C-alpha cells in the first residue's frame, strides 16, 4: 500500500527523510501534538493482592512498569526511535486515518527472581526474564 501511495503522490517524491516537504510536515505534526510523549510508568503487580502469599515466598510483588504515550518526533533525549518507527511515522503522515503511529513499547526488559513452593512443599527459585520494563521507546 505504501507503493501505491507513492504513485498517488507523484513520481518525483520519495519516502526519504531528507526530503524537505516531508521534514516540514514532521515538524508540523510534532508541534500540533499535545498528548504526552512516550514514557515509562510505574505499575506494581502485587502477589499478596492475588492471594498467593501462601505459596510465593518472595517477592510480595514487583514494580513491572508499562509504556504509554505518543511516539512523536523528536523523541526525548534518552530515547531512540528504530528505523521502523521513522518509516511508520512517515507512512502514518501519508495516511493518518488508516496507518497508526509507531508504538510506544518496551525497548529494554529486566528479569526478576521468584521464590515459591510447589505442591510438594519443595522450594523453587527461578529467574524470569523480560518481566520488568527498564526502558520505553518507539517501535
Amino acid at each position, binding site marked *: 500500500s505504501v507503493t501505491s501511495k507513492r504513485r498517488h503522490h507523484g513520481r518525483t517524491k520519495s519516502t526519504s527523510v531528507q526530503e524537505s516537504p516531508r521534514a516540514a510536515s514532521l515538524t508540523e505534526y510534532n508541534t500540533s501534538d499535545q498528548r*504526552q510523549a512516550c514514557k515509562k*510508568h*510505574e*505499575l*506494581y*503487580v*502485587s502477589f*499478596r*493482592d*492475588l492471594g*498467593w502469599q*501462601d*505459596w510465593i*515466598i*518472595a*517477592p*510480595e*510483588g*514487583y*514494580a513491572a512498569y508499562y509504556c*504509554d*504515550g505518543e511516539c512523536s518526533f523528536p523523541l526525548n533525549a534518552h530515547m531512540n526511535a528504530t528505523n521502523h518507527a521513522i518509516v511508520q511515522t512517515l507512512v502514518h503522515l501519508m495516511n493518518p486515518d488508516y496507518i497508526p503511529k509507531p508504538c510506544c513499547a518496551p525497548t*529494554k526488559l*529486566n*528479569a*526478576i*527472581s*521468584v*521464590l*515459591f*513452593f*510447589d*505442591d*510438594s*512443599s*519443595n*522450594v*523453587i*527459585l*527461578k*529467574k*524470569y*526474564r523480560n*518481566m*520488568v520494563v*527498564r526502558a520505553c521507546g518507539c517501535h
Partner: protein
Amino acid sequence: GSLLLDTGDMHSSFVHRRLKQHEKRDMQREILSILGLPHRPRPHSHGKQDSAPLFMLDLYNAMSSGGSGGGEEEEEEEDGEGFSHRYRAVFTTQSPPLASLQDSTFLNQADMVMSFVNLVEHEKGFALYQPHHQEYKFNLSQIPEGEAVTAAEFRIYKEWVRRHFENETFQISIYQVLHENVNSDTDLLLLDTRTVWASEEGWQVFDITATSNLWVMSPQHNLGLQLHVQTIDGQGINPKMAGLIGQHGPHDKQPFMVAFFKVSEVHIRTTR
C-alpha cells in the same frame, strides 16, 4: 484488593479501578502461565522442615541484594556472572563449600535452583539400637519441563559432639539405593564421603549430581539415599551419635536436597 496498583504519575487516559472477580482470575491465570505453572500450587506441610526454605531465602536475598525491589536483576547480571557471584557468597556463608561444585561452571549457567524436602518420616537410623544408617527420599516429579540438572547436593547439619566421641574422627558416606531387598541387604552405590572431626559444626554437603540426573530421567530408579557413619577404625555408629541432625532436631537444621538447573529449551506458551 486491587491487583495492579499504579504508583507513578497517572496518565489521563489510565483508568484506575479495582479488577472484577473474573478479571482477577484471568490475570492470575496469565501470570501462572508466565511462571510456567499449570495451576496455583497448594503446598502441604511436611512436619516443620524450615531449613530448605531458609536456605533458599538466603539465596534469593543474596541474588536480589544488588537489584532494586522485587528481586529485580540488573541488566549486566543477565549474562549469569552476577548469579554465580551471589551463589558463591551464600555457599561460603552457609557451609564449607564443596570443591567440585565451586570449581565447576554450573553456577554461571544455572537459572533455576530447587530444594527438596525429605519425605522419610520414620528415622530408624536415629533410634539408638537400630541399624547405623539413615534413609532419605525426595520427590523430583515436579521439576518443570525443559530444565536440566547441572549440579545437586545433599545437605545435612552436624553439631559438635561433646560426649562419647569427643576426639573422634568420623567418615560420613552417602549411598544411592539401587535395589531394596526384603530378605537381604539393600544394594547401594557409594556417591560421596566426607571425613569430619567430632568438634566440627555446620552443614555437610555431598555431591549427588549424577544420581539426581538419573532420578529425573528415570523416576522409577528414585529409591532414595542412605547415609552411613563410621569411626576411623571402621566401626559403624548411629548418625545421631556423630552429631548429625535428624527429624527430632531443630526445624531450621533438617536435612534437604538442593539442585541447580539450566533451561534446556525455550518455554513456549501454548496458544489458547
